[in-house]
């Protein structure tokens, strides 16, 4: 198991995304709000002439109300289904090696986590929940459904 994962914290918990899914980590500068979208969609931003859809990852999981990030907040840039997203998370930690296959969490991880995570993985930085990008990007409504 030599896959790398990006470790970050989300709602105070450690979570991970496969680095194959992560394009880069950037500091967001401008953010254009998009009226009438679900809360977890923070708005649009631009990165090197490409429009980014900015997602509040914690709100997308239903963990916390969406918070408009401070200028310069770091976000993970991911590509999914032809669109480029910026995931705003609490704090981006590091890239670490994935040491185990995802396993089911003993007991329940909580409703948001349970749907969006593929399971618990061991990393050099400690255990983390591996997130499924597709579920995360579809927002809390899809998770609840």
């Amino acid at each position, binding site marked *: 198991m030599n896959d790398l994962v990006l470790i970050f914290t989300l709602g105070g918990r450690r979570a991970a995304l496969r680095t194959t899914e992560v394009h880069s980590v950037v500091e967001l500068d401008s953010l254009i709000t*998009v009226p009438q979208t679900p809360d977890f969609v923070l708005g649009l931003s631009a990165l090197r002439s490409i429009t980014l859809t900015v997602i509040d990852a914690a709100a997308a999981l239903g963990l916390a109300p969406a918070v408009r990030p401070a200028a310069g907040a770091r976000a993970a840039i991911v590509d999914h289904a032809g669109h480029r997203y910026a995931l705003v998370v609490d704090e981006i930690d590091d890239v670490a090696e994935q040491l185990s296959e995802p396993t089911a969490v003993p007991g329940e991880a909580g409703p948001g986590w349970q749907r969006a995570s593929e399971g618990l993985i061991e990393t050099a930085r400690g255990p983390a929940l591996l997130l499924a990008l597709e579920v995360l990007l579809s927002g809390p409504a899809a998770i609840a459904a």
Partner: protein
Amino acid sequence: MDVVRANIERVGGSIQVSSTPGQGTRIMLSLPLTLSIIPSLTVQSGGQLFAMPRSYVDEIVHGRAGHIEFARAGDAVLVTVRGQRIACLSLAAMLGGTEKFVPEASTLVLIRLAGGDLFALACDRILDHEELVIKPLAPAIMATGLYAGSTLLDDGNPVLMLDVAGIARKARLIGDVQGRVRSGGDDDSREAERKGTPAMLFIGLDGRRKAVRLSLVRRIERIAASSIDLGGERPQAVIGEAIFALAGADAGPLPADQASVLRLGDGTHEIAYVFDTIVDTVDLPEDIVPAPRGGPVEGTVLIGGEPADLLDAHWLFAAFASPVRAARRPLCRLPAGDPWAQSILAPLIENAGYAIVDENFSGEADVAIATDEARPDTLAGGTVITLSADPDSAAQGGDKLYRYDRAGLLARLTALRAGRAA
């Protein structure tokens, strides 16, 4: 289906499927003009920039322009632009803004949708007109139905391209395509019902279905067939105390005893139109197939799936109308002392359009009836018709008639009247 939808949504389009059991399925694909350079208008609303495709924009007017007028219907704001009252939407309110909408302080962008619907979208100000490269949006944003795509402006900031059709749909100005089609159909039929001209459908003497605009019909009368006079230059009918020019009589044989006539009036003149039976009052359809040449029939209309001749009122009045003459009914002198003449003969004579007088009448009678029993003393003036109770004596000729020779008597009376009229 899911693959189709994913790909359509990727380019910023949408797919709607509506299905009604037994009727069919309607699939509406809408593909916004994304991934292409489109001339756009950038507008400001609620402190934020938006773009809208210029192809939808009909006109831009300022809320304070003199020629427009705002009206409020409940919560809706309507604006009248050059006599046309259309819905006025606040873009800020459509996008969830909470500021009070002051239409007078806004700039109105008049948007004509593909279906022809017009509405006004009020924004704070128009900024610019530029060619923008529109790129698709993430599904979570497309789901709002308000945006068609996004683009980057010169300063590197993204700007949202509004889906004006989606906004109109959101504001219930238009339904989905199916609803629009259906409601359009309903409107049309209501329109036709409202605008339809009521007409009277009847069967003429020739057995054909005919229609006449109801507004022309003054009355329907039942008159004795004998009061219809076809002998003159122009057919006439005596109705009550007046003589009317009679149309429709050339179409077929008159009924034996009682005839039905329509009294048609143009406000000044009245004419009578003899017919067989009334069918119904109906609404005239919009489509009238014109008659190839002028005449009593204006054209043919379809009523209840069958054709009917629509009477050309103008032609009828031009051909027949003459001021209604107060009839001087011809006088018929009957022997007063003869009970048979008074009780049996008199009604028949009256039906034939004559007024009855007896020997005491000092004036000149047009015709006098003599019977075997009683001959009127005064024979001065007029024709004398002698009726005999004996068929044989009548058969001898002369002006004697068998007294129950109804046809003969009526023919004589009619001929006399026609002779006078001519």
